[in-house]
């Protein structure tokens, strides 16, 4: 069995003391970030990115992925105990989880959230491992045209998931694409839009943009909102759910995992969408839908399973095709490129230790998380008592040091400041920064593949429709766009984002 030998390779890498330590560090930081409202995993990954440069690539990526799925666990703790989603994917967990806590069943709610997450994480790890090989065979058939079409689909997906108006999200993608082209044109060596600034020759740094928009800008906006963090002071006792509850949750967990795994792979998909969808499905299939919102344990199990499965399977397009499906995956691409790894199907064959090491570390990380989350729950809860006014100056300082350390230049700090101000503007006019960052990452890749495809077809635009895989991807894009514009779906989408 290939799968087993591949996983053996992976575990050999993931089980080295160094990588175990970084995996543990990643999931601890992730849990922390998930627990504390106001600090998103994307911000944290952006801030920590520069500090991973000195690490071996596998350790760096293992730690960064740990932060991402670790945050899904931590987010549920805050959702259940404080009724505040520490993480956008935990919004639906608030509904039933917090009701359970009010009824004195915080323990079982937390336990079932952790169990569902672990179950989903295990299944998702196996799915990633099995799906990767066939997908990478498919990817070898990809030429420039397919890559271009796939990226179009990915960008459209990110638009579909952005809150607010699709037109603004498309505009943000286009802006991102344009900013991605700043620097020396690889084909002709001509500088483009560099304003004759030497530092811009290599393009606009990815770290200053990410930290500026997601770290500083979000912080400045969040500080303008009134903070309400009244902690529910319930003692968390008798953690274990009874058999009846576990039996009720098993099918919910399975459905949640399936939904999360599928939605996670889709471009633009990921943890947040998965948890919404799983909750909606669970309410539909339930014999007693009126219990939902009043402390139904399935209403905790299904979305928690789904968001963890979705978080993990969103690595599939990145690892097999080199295409990031959401903004966090875009940061992972940035991390890989900084380590000199060109993301894509060749990673699996050229660096199997890295590829399978990351996959194996995900399961180990999930195992660590369940240990960290259940017995140590009191510790995480006490962290919630740290006032925000003490936390945020630390975030500002780390953002600055992180950006500076990339190339030891204050020019990057100035860029970060510029993008922070732009980020505040975008948030205030209702245009989300996530599609921008995705466009920014994909801009140069898309241009390169577009130019190559047009070059090979001698300027015939129809090449994108003549090649079957490319055509299928474009048809999917079109379908997605139609769905976006349909009024019924738009109303439904607004309703989902309202909750």
């Amino acid at each position, binding site marked *: 069995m290939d799968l087993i030998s591949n996983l053996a390779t992976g575990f050999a890498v993931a089980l080295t003391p160094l990588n175990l330590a970084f995996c543990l560090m990643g999931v601890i930081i992730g849990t922390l970030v998930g627990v504390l409202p106001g600090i998103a995993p994307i911000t944290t990954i952006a801030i920590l990115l520069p500090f991973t440069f000195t690490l071996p690539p596998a350790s760096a990526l293992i730690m960064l992925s740990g932060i991402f799925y670790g945050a899904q666990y931590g987010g549920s703790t805050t959702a259940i105990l404080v009724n505040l989603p520490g993480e956008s994917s935990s919004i639906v967990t608030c509904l039933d989880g917090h009701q359970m806590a009010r009824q004195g069943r915080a323990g079982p709610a937390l336990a079932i959230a952790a169990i569902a997450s672990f179950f989903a994480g295990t299944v998702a790890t196996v799915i990633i491992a099995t799906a990767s090989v066939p997908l990478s065979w498919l990817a070898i058939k990809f030429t420039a045209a397919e890559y271009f079409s796939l990226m179009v689909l990915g960008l459209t997906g990110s638009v579909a998931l952005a809150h607010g108006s699709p037109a603004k999200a498309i505009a943000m993608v286009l802006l991102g*694409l*344009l900013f991605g082209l700043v620097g020396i044109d690889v084909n002709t060596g*001509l500088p*483009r839009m560099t304003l004759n600034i030497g530092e811009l020759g290599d393009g606009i740094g990815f770290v200053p943009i990410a930290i500026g928009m997601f770290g*500083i800008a979000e912080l*400045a906006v969040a*500080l303008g909102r009134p903070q309400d963090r009244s902690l529910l002071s319930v003692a968390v006792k008798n953690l274990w759910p009874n058999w009846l509850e576990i039996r009720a949750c098993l099918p919910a967990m399975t459905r949640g995992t399936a939904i999360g795994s599928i939605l996670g792979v889709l471009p633009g998909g990921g943890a947040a969408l998965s948890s919404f969808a799983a909750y909606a499905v669970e309410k539909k299939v339930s014999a007693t839908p009126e219990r939902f919102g009043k402390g139904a344990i399935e209403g905790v199990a299904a979305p928690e399973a789904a968001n963890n499965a979705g978080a993990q399977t969103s690595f599939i397009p990145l690892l097999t095709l080199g295409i990031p499906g959401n903004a966090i995956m875009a940061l992972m691409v940035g991390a890989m490129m900084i380590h000199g790894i060109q993301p894509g199907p060749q990673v699996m064959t050229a660096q199997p230790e890295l590829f399978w090491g990351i996959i194996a570390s995900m399961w180990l990380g999930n195992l660590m998380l369940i240990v960290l989350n259940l017995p140590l729950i009191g510790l995480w809860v006490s962290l919630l008592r740290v006032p925000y006014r003490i936390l945020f*100056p630390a975030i500002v300082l780390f953002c*600055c040091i992180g950006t500076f350390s990339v190339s030891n230049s204050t020019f990057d700090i100035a860029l970060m400041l510029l993008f922070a101000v732009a980020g505040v503007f975008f948030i205030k006019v209702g245009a989300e920064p996530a599609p921008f960052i995705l466009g920014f990452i994909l801009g140069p890749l898309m241009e390169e593949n577009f130019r190559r495809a047009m*070059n090979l077809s001698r300027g015939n635009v129809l090449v994108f429709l003549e090649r079957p895989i490319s055509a299928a991807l474009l048809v999917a894009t079109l379908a997605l766009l139609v769905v976006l514009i349909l009024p019924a779906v738009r109303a439904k989408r607004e309703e989902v984002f309202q909750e």
Partner: protein
Amino acid sequence: MGRINVPDLAFGLFLVGVGALALVLISDLPMGTTARMGAGYVPRALAVIIILFGLGLGGRALLAGHVGLPEIAWRPLALIAGAVGLFALLLPRLGLALTSLAVVITAGFASHDVRFRENIVVALSLAAFAVGLFVYALGLPLAIWPVR
């Protein structure tokens, strides 16, 4: 101004501005042909599409009904931006320890419930923590004290 969607109009104008700026900056780059694109082809196409989006969004905003100027909390924005600016200005001169102090104290005042003494204590501990973690543990090449 009564019927205008101000945020949408602002975003539309911003798009037009960025697109126009890009067109000016790339005006001397060769377009090439569709089969052999020059350095200016894709950026120019993008800039034009962005301008069109800006015009569309801005035009719609004029008819869309009134949405006022969004509330902007200037104090946190100015103080956080100031703290970041201070970092860029001070770090090459004062070193990490004093710069961290200045950044944390400035940023601290961005919050409404800032407490003066607590802010100083937080700043001192964070400065020590930053020096310990980034210079000693992670080995970043940063000066700790003012450079002569």
